[in-house]
């Protein structure tokens, strides 16, 4: 009996110290983690609505869940909205940030999260590059400004139709998940914009 | 008198059959299907087949040379693997596809297990699975037969069926002659039948695996028809895809199939059911190769439970 209590106390002590340590680390890193998340959100919003100067979240009045972001220009006029769309891909939930003009044309989309098969489904977020490793040794700079060709196709398309967007060969499920989720979410957001 | 007493251990009665002879006979029996493919798709089918055989033989020779073991490329097993692999790729595949597939088939499918007789899986099908997983686009783009440009290009009849299209332009005679899109060796059904009958008559294969394999697939396709139960077009499913090639020439591989007749029937039914399940509900239009690979894995188990008991034990 005594040893059980004793052992329990020692284990408890170790847990207590560990908890204290983790609380400290959490406190130290939390502001930075939040700043990183904010920065990432801002970056992806800027990527899909490059012309907007500031963004304003719009929430549902009944339960305060986030619906979309308004993109405003310098004169605070609405130039577009940005929202996230989610679709079930081949092996993961694919999350994309979509930028849309008020008339329903897509400005750009960006894949935020995906865990699709490398080399197949993951091509939804891969950049086609002509710069080989030999070129890099020769001093050529890799082209960092390039966007993934698959998501690039969405630009200037009508959001609810998305006609002419090509699927990736051998990765129809992943491509379809992105196309369908963007279409569906755009329809919802358009509804909200006209009626709400 | 020169009456020497010869003492040796049994068996005393030998036949002329050797592993090499069997391998070459199976190879010969596959030649008609190859000729058929060249007639249907043109010379590109021949070049791909030759590349595949060359790569398979070269891989085996190099590995045996490097591991300082006896070079056994003359036994025909590498030639057969290369030939079967080539028969499993589209006739318009780039030339490096059969080369990569054959190297993988021999190196990973056969030699790492210790060479002929030790491998668990049919090497040619291991190669095909590797190609399917690695270059799906090249492996699923099919050209139409020569002079039949109006046919559905880019898809086999089974693939068209999977996408919900109805294949009307194809008669049973076309399918029997092989005038359809498909892999090199699977299309010319009539030539495959000639080869299979030759093997059966000469006793190189027994009827158990082909009959139970094809029979169970046909039965299931008939039961789960598209217009309700017992309406399926079972003949279409026998004549399309790689069913005949797989059932007669690949599922019957000595090394990777069960030994006893009872085991072979279980094996054949397993292959047939899996093929039908993949064709009906799977992600791929065709499932023969995966069905055989899966049953290859079950072969040791089947052998264990169907082993004939030695009298007295």
């Amino acid at each position, binding site marked *: 009996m005594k*040893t059980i209590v*004793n*052992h*329990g106390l*020692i*284990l408890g002590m*170790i*847990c207590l110290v*560990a908890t204290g*340590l*983790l609380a400290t*680390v*959490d406190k130290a*890193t939390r502001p*930075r*983690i939040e700043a*990183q*998340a904010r920065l*990432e959100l801002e970056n992806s919003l800027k990527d899909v609505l490059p012309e907007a100067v500031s963004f304003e979240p719009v929430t549902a009045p009944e339960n305060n869940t986030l619906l979309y972001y308004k993109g405003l220009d310098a004169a605070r006029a609405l130039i577009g909205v940005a929202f996230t769309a989610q679709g079930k891909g081949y092996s993961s939930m694919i999350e994309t940030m979509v930028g849309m003009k008020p008339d329903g044309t897509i400005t750009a989309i960006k894949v935020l*999260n995906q*865990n699709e*098969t*490398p*080399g*197949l489904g993951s091509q939804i977020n891969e950049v086609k*590059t*002509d*710069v*080989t*490793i*030999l070129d*890099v040794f020769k001093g050529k700079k*890799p082209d960092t400004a390039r966007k993934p060709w698959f998501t690039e196709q969405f630009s200037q398309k009508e959001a609810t139709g998305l006609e002419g967007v090509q699927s990736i060969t051998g990765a129809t499920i992943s491509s379809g998940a992105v196309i369908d989720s963007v279409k569906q979410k755009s329809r919802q957001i358009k509804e909200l914009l006209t009626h709400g | 008198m020169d009456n020497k007493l010869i003492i040796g251990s049994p068996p005393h009665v030998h036949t002329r059959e050797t592993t090499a002879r069997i391998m070459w006979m199976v190879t010969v029996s596959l030649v008609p299907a190859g000729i058929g493919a060249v007639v249907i798709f043109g010379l590109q089918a021949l070049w791909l087949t030759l590349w595949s055989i060359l790569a398979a033989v070269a891989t085996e020779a190099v590995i045996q040379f490097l591991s300082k073991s006896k070079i056994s490329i003359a036994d025909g097993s590498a030639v057969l693997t290369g030939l079967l692999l080539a028969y499993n790729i589209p006739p318009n595949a780039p030339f490096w596809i059969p080369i*990569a597939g054959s190297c993988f088939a021999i190196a*990973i499918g056969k030699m*790492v297990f210790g060479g002929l007789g030790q491998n668990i899986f049919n090497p040619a099908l291991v190669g095909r699975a*590797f190609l399917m*997983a*690695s*270059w*799906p686009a*090249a492996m699923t783009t099919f050209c139409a037969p020569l002079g039949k440009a109006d046919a559905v290009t880019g898809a086999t009849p089974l693939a068209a069926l999977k996408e919900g299209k109805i294949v009307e332009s194809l008669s049973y005679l076309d399918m029997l002659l092989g005038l359809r899109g498909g892999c090199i060796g699977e299309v010319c059904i009539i030539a495959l039948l000639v080869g299979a009958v030759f093997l059966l008559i000469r006793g190189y294969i027994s009827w158990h695996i082909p009959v139970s394999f094809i029979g169970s697939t046909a039965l299931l396709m008939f039961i789960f028809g598209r217009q309700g139960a017992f309406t399926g077009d079972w003949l279409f499913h026998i004549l399309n895809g790689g069913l005949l090639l797989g059932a007669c020439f690949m599922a019957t591989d000595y090394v990777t199939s069960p030994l006893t007749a009872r085991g072979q029937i279980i094996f054949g039914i397993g292959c047939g059911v899996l093929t039908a399940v993949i064709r009906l509900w799977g992600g791929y239009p065709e499932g023969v190769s995966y069905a055989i690979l899966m049953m290859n894995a079950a072969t040791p188990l089947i052998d264990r439970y169907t082993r004939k008991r030695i009298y007295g034990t």
Partner: protein
Amino acid sequence: MAKTNNLFLEFWKGIIKENPTFVLALGLCPTLAVSISVANAVGMGVAATFVLLGSNIMIALLKNFIPDKVRIPCYIVVIATFVTIAELSMKAYSPALNRALGIYVPLIVVNCMVLGRAEAFASKNNVVASILDALGMGVGFTVALILISAIRELLGAGKIAGFVVTKNFAPAAMIAMPSGALLVIGLLLGYFNYLKEKN
């Protein structure tokens, strides 16, 4: 002199003779999962080395304090603490890497390499030896991960350290899939066993 030599051996054994991946075959789950690109491999290796170092130091310090009967829960608490620290700092300073490694960072807790070294080494040796053991094992793990991921990245994606090798190479996607990971690890294990037998 003999003493420093011994200590050096404690470090060196983790890299070759007792390499956690290729000889002890420990911690294969994260190895299979994250060895898709060299960048992932380095991140995972550094995180695992940090956890290994922290847990080995703590356990070597506490070895007389921790009763034998409850040692495994105690070790796990210590390891989990360091894993959480690693995860939080990765989130704060390298969110992209954290996303790439995903669930496999928290899963370092159950990486049997970490618990294995705590149980087999740190609980029986002093702090200095435990530090060297952790560093050696960590470096060995990282080197193994980099080797596997370099092969997989080259064959499966046609890239070296993120750069395309040549435009005309169609990579074998299977090598980048889980089956490719098992295949590459299996062949490398076989090769290292062959080398060991030859000696």
